[in-house]
């Protein structure tokens, strides 16, 4: 087990009334690419900061590679790589100097672990004399990844690595993660983008400091209850209201250019079509669609709201 988390809680604020994490338990296997998926403010960064020994949990315990985050923090610090969400390298040092600095403080050299970062580093090597502050967003991200990897960590923590990065760079980045995984590295990554979830081996959906579900992306999709319909009409706003009033629809929300309606106990799409027709909608299109991770997230969130979170 690379990471195991046992009932961790963490609160902030003067009266400890902001609950960032509520009794979270989780385990990540060695060599796994594990995704922590959740919206902003769900508690992802707090969990990262606990696992990388930057803050202590209020309650509960956690180990990384068998080392306790409370007692063996020094050991953990030598074997994990951490890439925080915000770019935090020395902007006034060059690409090469940054890399060399982080190599040195981890008692190693660029040459020693060059193999590991080669594929990523060759892309920024032409700019190695340039100051990190003058790099583009995608380049900065690659440099940050190199710096987090330079000491060949056993576990790599990536906190929202693709936030604020363009689509092409995001794809490239995930390809790099797959490469690293092949080398046997455990990768713990968080992201607010649900579409990236399918690229992970397993994912945990986190919301308001609680884990709603942990599974492989496929299983999670299979667990989706009821059917999902994609609906389009000429008056999208009115359609949203009407659909929410339809008895068989448990939840309806806007998803891109259409509405997604979670429906249970309904046999024929015609029923939905007729209902909208009666409400004077025009150009109605109803189609059955496959749920995405985001739809699963929405469904789990509703279930969560129905049973209120226990007040601590």
């Amino acid at each position, binding site marked *: 087990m690379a990471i195991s988390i046992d009932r961790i809680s963490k609160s902030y604020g003067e009266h400890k009334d902001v609950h960032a994490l509520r009794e979270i338990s989780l385990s990540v296997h060695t060599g796994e690419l594990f995704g922590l998926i959740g919206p902003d403010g769900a508690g992802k960064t707090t969990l990262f900061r606990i696992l*990388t*020994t*930057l803050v202590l949990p209020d309650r509960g315990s956690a180990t990384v590679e068998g080392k306790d985050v409370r007692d063996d923090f*020094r050991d953990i*610090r*030598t074997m*994990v790589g*951490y890439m*925080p969400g*915000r*770019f*935090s*390298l*020395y*902007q*006034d*040092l060059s690409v090469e*100097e940054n890399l*060399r*600095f*982080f190599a*040195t*403080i*981890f*008692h190693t050299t660029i040459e020693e672990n060059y193999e590991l970062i080669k594929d990523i580093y060759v892309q920024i090597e032409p700019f190695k004399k340039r100051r990190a502050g003058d790099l583009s967003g995608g380049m900065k991200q690659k440099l940050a990844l190199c*710096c987090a990897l330079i000491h060949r960590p056993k576990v790599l923590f990536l906190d929202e690595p693709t936030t604020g990065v363009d689509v092409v760079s995001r794809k490239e980045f995930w390809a790099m993660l797959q490469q690293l995984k092949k080398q046997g590295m455990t990768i713990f990554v968080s992201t607010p983008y649900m579409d990236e979830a399918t690229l992970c081996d397993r994912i945990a959906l986190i919301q308001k400091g609680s884990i709603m579900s942990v599974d492989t992306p496929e299983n999670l999709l299979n667990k989706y209850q009821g059917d999902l319909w994609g609906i389009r009409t000429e008056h999208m706003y009115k359609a949203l209201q009407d659909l929410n009033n339809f008895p068989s629809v448990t939840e309806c929300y806007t998803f891109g250019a259409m509405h997604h309606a979670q429906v249970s106990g309904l046999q024929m799409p015609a029923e939905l079509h007729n209902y909208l027709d009666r409400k004077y909608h025009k150009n109605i299109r109803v189609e059955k669609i496959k749920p995405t991770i985001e739809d699963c997230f929405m469904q789990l969130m509703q279930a969560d709201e129905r049973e209120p979170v226990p007040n601590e």
Partner: protein
Amino acid sequence: MNKMKYILRKEFKQIFRDPAILRLIFLMPAIQLLILPFAADYEIKNINVGIVDHDHSTYSRGLIQKIEFSSYFNLTEYSDSYQMGLQWIESETADLIIEIPTNFEKNLVRESEATLFLAVNAVNGPKGNLGAAYASNIIRSYNQDIRSEWIQWPRMNPEPQIEVVASHWYNPTSNYQVFMVPGILAVLLTMVGGFLSALNIVREKEIGTIEQLNVSPIKKHQFILGKLIPFWLLGFVVLTIGLMISYVIHGIIPGPNLGTLYLFSGIYLLAILGFGLLVSNFTDTQQQALMVAFFFMLIFILLSGLYTPIESMPKWAQIVAWINPVTYLVDVCRMVMLKGSVLSDMTFHLVAIGFTGVLLNTLAIWTYAKRT
């Protein structure tokens, strides 16, 4: 050890790439030492005097001439109405009015006694007080002149007179620059050691690199030493530049005990670096650090005896002044540069600053450990 070396190399690289810090380190001593000693000067000169002369006599003219020839006064207004005189004060064309009454000469000759009236604008307290004192001095000496003119000297002087001759030790010409320059050197060291270091540490927090360092095997003391050693050395650079400027511009030779000054400065820098670290522990952005530093800087400078003697402060302020580490450095700079003091003369200072250093650094390391 290799790691420490690399950390230091990185710190120096960053310092020398930051144009703001470089400018500060080389220009701050230059500008402060070039401008401040000339401008921040408590010798009051150019006091504007208005004369209200109701007498228009030989003696009144003699007195006016004597005042006019003094280097302290500018005769700006002249009239024979006191009302006019008050208007000068209001419009600030005169700081001081001397009113010479009618029959000034007559009374002086006949009754051997005459009165004069002095009115002072006391908005600027020291200027008014000193102006009145200077004016009284001149009038007294004028009085003396007249007496000696009249007296037919008998065999023995009937009026015993005490003549006072003063000799100004350590600053023979009572030159204000000589007094100010060592003090300004102390302020410069404080800025580099206490404030630049605080800003530098807080910057790591602000840009988030401190988190990267925390998630690394780098030890706390390595990080702190990496931050403090460069500024300790820069303190000496600034001191050296400052001493060179004070020699070239002000002709101040720092005396035979330069080593003593460097030794004491080294210990002082350790103490003030602890202060910088303490400030950085309680702030998260450079802006906050700057505000806190600015607040302390004002207190440090005003209550250090740099401008005003500590002995003339109220009792509570004297206590604050002797808690203030800058006081000790200002004192030691003056002792070494003006008096040529040796190490044994400053035992008390050494003990005090050593104690402050231990206290500040312990506090700093304690709060640093507590907050991360």
